[in-house]
């Protein structure tokens, strides 16, 4: 069994108009097909949510590799083994490695490999679901020294959407469809 809610068949998903979403899954690797095929029980949700997650994670004006580190940090916070073990093929192809991913979930504040902007973004996601009361006016003012307001909204929206779906997928007790680097 793949997950508590069984995914719909691939052919059914394609028949529901989710072919483009499944194509993105194959191309990017985040998510794999399991997530849209679970959401495919409610096809309108599958298309809207998967598209929004792709827009937030893989498009926009913030470095995709940084957003990939943030996405995995969030999934570890959510205790979701499914999203935490998926990797963006684009980010890996652009040089992101497991050491840097782990560093983003570790003592990133004192890690010289991250710029001040990257540290702020990593702190933003780290605090969001642990100590949101610390994300105040002063915190956003510091963020504006490194990012435009559009970029901050891009980061905040991505953090919120991906974390929310990670919390949901945690309850599915699912794992990735494929092993690492396969």
């Amino acid at each position, binding site marked *: 069994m793949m997950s*508590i*809610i*069984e995914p719909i068949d691939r052919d059914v998903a394609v028949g529901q108009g989710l072919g483009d979403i499944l194509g993105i899954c194959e191309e990017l690797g985040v998510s794999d097909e399991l997530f849209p095929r*679970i*959401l495919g*029980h*409610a096809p309108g*949700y599958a298309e809207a*949510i998967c598209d929004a997650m792709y827009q937030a994670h893989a498009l926009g004006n913030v470095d995709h590799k940084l957003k990939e580190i943030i996405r995995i940090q969030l999934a570890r916070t*959510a*205790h979701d083994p499914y999203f935490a073990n998926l990797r963006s093929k684009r980010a890996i192809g652009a040089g992101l490695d497991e050491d840097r991913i782990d560093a983003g979930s570790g003592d990133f504040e004192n890690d010289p490999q991250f710029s001040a902007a990257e540290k702020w973004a990593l702190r933003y996601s780290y605090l*969001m*679901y642990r100590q*949101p009361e610390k*994300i*105040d*006016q002063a*915190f*956003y003012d510091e963020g504006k020294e490194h990012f435009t307001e559009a970029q901050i909204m891009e980061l*905040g*929206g991505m*953090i*919120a*959407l*991906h*974390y*929310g*779906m*990670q*919390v*949901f*997928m*945690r*309850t599915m*007790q699912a794992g990735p469809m494929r092993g690492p680097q396969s």
Partner: protein
Amino acid sequence: MRSASAKRNGLTEELIDEGIDHYRESTAFTEAEKAALEYSELMQFSPEKIDHAFYDRLRKHFTEAEIVELGAFIGFNVGYHTFFRTLDFYPMFSPDGRLVSQEESARIYGTRPVSHLHGALARAVAEAGQQSEEGAG
């Protein structure tokens, strides 16, 4: 903020409060509604308790399509409301339907989300009355 559609269909502040604070012992909700409310509560506060047995309970009341719809909707809200909290903004309209400034909205609703029955409605009426008096003066 409230859904105008839900209110038109009979949702009241009393039922909202009941669904948040006392749904388990309430007679206002069906067993299906109670299961959905528990799903939401656990997703936010104790997701580790949402296991096979819990989903089997949900299946007694909902189809898998409905469960996925509920789960994704709840997850979406769990994610976004914390983000929105950090942005420190308030509804554009008061509980009595007036377009209000962010400052007035903050005074009416307060900085912590609580029942509208615990002050927000009364504060909205008071603010409207004060503005009416100032306008007349």
